């Protein structure tokens, strides 16, 4: 057997050969990805993973991750890509079972960073109990990619009797939020904008399927679950309102926001309602079950700051309204374009 030089994780970089399907790529996969993700399905070593029977309705979701910077307080593109897709499946009320991960790497990308990312994914995957069973690697020329893009897909199974969907919200239902908003977006943006902190803003990236399972277990009449990622709480609620053909009324005073996040938003002229979250969920449930559901959420580590933030109304316009802390009322509209930091 010929000697293969071990990958130089200290100074090495991705080269075009790592994506060409030949020895170099096989080496990269074995030495880096397979080693990090280590599970029997991946070890099968085939193009497709052969998985056991799953009984129940299947849920599948996919997400591409292009976050910049790649590393930020509280996480990185790796764990983000694991959490994000697991969460999409969990929001359907499904138990996530398996993940796939596809990498588009830019020529010249440091192997040290790739290793860090892979290990972060491995940790996230292990903690969540959802193995990465198959994957793909491609390399693009320098300048044609932003370091690394990761696409993950997750498959899960929904338990019988559970149907969660965005069009099921009804007037009278209560809206619950699992915790403080704006942490992830501000953690990423603050790095870019040169803000620093007494107490750093840390991304809230987390896998929520455990919290979801606890919520489903308690038997509350749940209608919709959704995680407010890009576009924030405001956009997600507007989506649901439109899908269900209803309106909503929120209480600003009830929406938890960490003080540092609030201050960072002030600095940059942003509204926390529109800032991305990666470890929070919105739940819409029948009014009678709201208190019970809240208690269940608060007993879970990822729902300790959960709150009832509003209710669903009958409204032909489909407005999401809010009672401001100040006492007036306003609309919380869709995000138009990108939320651009204002100076004005």
């Amino acid at each position: 057997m010929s000697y293969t030089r071990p990958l130089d994780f200290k100074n090495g970089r991705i080269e075009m050969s790592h994506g060409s399907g030949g020895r170099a790529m096989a080496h990269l996969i074995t030495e880096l990805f397979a080693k990090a993700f280590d599970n029997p399905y991946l070890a099968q070593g085939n193009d497709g993973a052969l998985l056991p029977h799953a009984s129940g309705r299947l849920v599948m979701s996919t997400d591409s991750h292009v976050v910049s910077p790649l590393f930020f307080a509280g996480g990185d593109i790796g764990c983000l890509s694991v959490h994000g897709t697991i969460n999409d499946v969990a929001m359907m009320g499904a138990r996530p079972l398996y993940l796939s991960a596809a990498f588009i790497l830019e020529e010249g990308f440091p192997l040290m960073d790739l290793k860090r990312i892979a290990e972060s994914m491995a940790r996230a995957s292990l903690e969540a109990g959802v193995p990465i069973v198959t994957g793909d690697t491609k390399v693009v020329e320098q300048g044609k990619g932003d370091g690394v893009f990761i696409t993950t897909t997750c498959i899960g199974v929904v338990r019988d009797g559970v149907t969660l969907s965005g069009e099921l919200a009804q007037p009278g239902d209560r809206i619950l939020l699992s915790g403080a908003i704006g942490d992830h977006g501000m953690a990423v943006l603050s790095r870019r904008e040169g803000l620093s902190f007494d107490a750093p803003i840390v991304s809230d990236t987390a896998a929520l399927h455990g919290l979801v399972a606890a919520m489903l277990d308690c038997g509350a009449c749940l209608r919709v679950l959704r995680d407010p990622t890009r576009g924030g709480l405001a956009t997600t609620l507007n989506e649901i309102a439109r899908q269900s053909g209803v309106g909503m009324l929120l209480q600003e005073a009830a929406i938890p926001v960490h003080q540092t996040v609030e201050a960072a938003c002030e600095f940059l002229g942003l509204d926390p309602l529109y800032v991305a979250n990666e470890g929070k969920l919105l739940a819409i449930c029948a009014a009678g079950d709201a208190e019970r559901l809240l208690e269940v959420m608060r007993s879970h580590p990822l729902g300790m700051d959960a709150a009832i933030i509003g209710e669903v109304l009958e409204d032909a316009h489909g407005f999401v309204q809010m009672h401001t802390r100040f006492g007036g009322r306003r609309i919380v509209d869709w995000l138009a374009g990108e939320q651009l930091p204002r100076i004005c």
Partner: protein
Amino acid sequence: MKYVDEFRDGELAKVIAANIAREADSQRVYRLMEFCGGHTHAISRYGLADLLPASVRLIHGPGCPVCVLPIGRVDQAIRLATDQGVILCTYADTMRVPASDNLTLMRARAGGADVRMIYSTQDALKIARDNPERQVVFFAIGFETTTPPTAVAVKQAAAENLRNFSILCNHVLTPAAMHAILAVEGGVALDGFIGPAHVSTVIGSQPYEIFADDYAKPVVIAGFEPLDVMQAILMLIRQINGGRAAVENEFTRAVTREGNRKAQAWVAEVFELREVFEWRGLGSVPYSALKLRKVFSEFDAELKFSVGYVAVPDHKACECAAILRGQKHPQECKIFGTVCTPENPIGSCMVSSEGACAAHYSYGRLRGVTP
């Protein structure tokens, strides 16, 4: 957040609101114009109109410097980026303002132009230093709050001999806008002004005295927070009820009669008055805007590059002009909310979150509006 949270206290708001309700004469209308993008935004974001009696009407004036920029000026900025290949630095507020040929600075960037959003003029200087082989132009907009930072940048560029740096100057003046409003043909029905917060920090309260003295319109300078605005409204109502017209200052924690002399000096050193400048909605207004003094002319992008100003009329159906003058309400624009939305803005009032149309669309569509 100290000096922020206390001025957003909902309990105090109720008390001030009760007093406004008590003192406002229900037999008359109080038409109060606010002149500050920050006020437009605060009124909308906190739903202040809900706390006021129907007799108090808040009118949005031309306080949003993005909104008053005529299309032709945005075209110049875009042409600098696309045709002249400069690095065009701008505050984020201008990125989506619709210009000619269905372009915006954002679309120009998508088309390959080097347009960069910055937070401070210091960022623009840094870009110029880091890219000595490229021309860097700063799209300078804003009222008197934003002009001193530009002055500092130009002086610094001069001191460092930063020859690849220049500005496209669109700084405008608040008192000139107020004069223009009051001089509008047919008049604008107004009973008083809520004076801008941070502009007044710089220029002081003294420049408004002419409006109280000569035009008999009370002016109350209001701080930026919702309680400030409410208190200022109460103070205006008191003046109007009492038949008085004076300049009062609610924002005493940051505004004095003379203002910030140091900032004023920076501006006076670097800029001088343009004889005339076109405003969206107000037409050509004399001595209402600034340009660089001759000694700094090498930093003037209009002289450096051949991007002459070409006046471009607004879209035919766009009512930004009348809205900026306070003569029409966004609801009265035929294309408001239908063709013209935040996703697809036709006029600048819909782009900037301080624009009357954007503010109303995003926050105010709830309540039916009495024009």
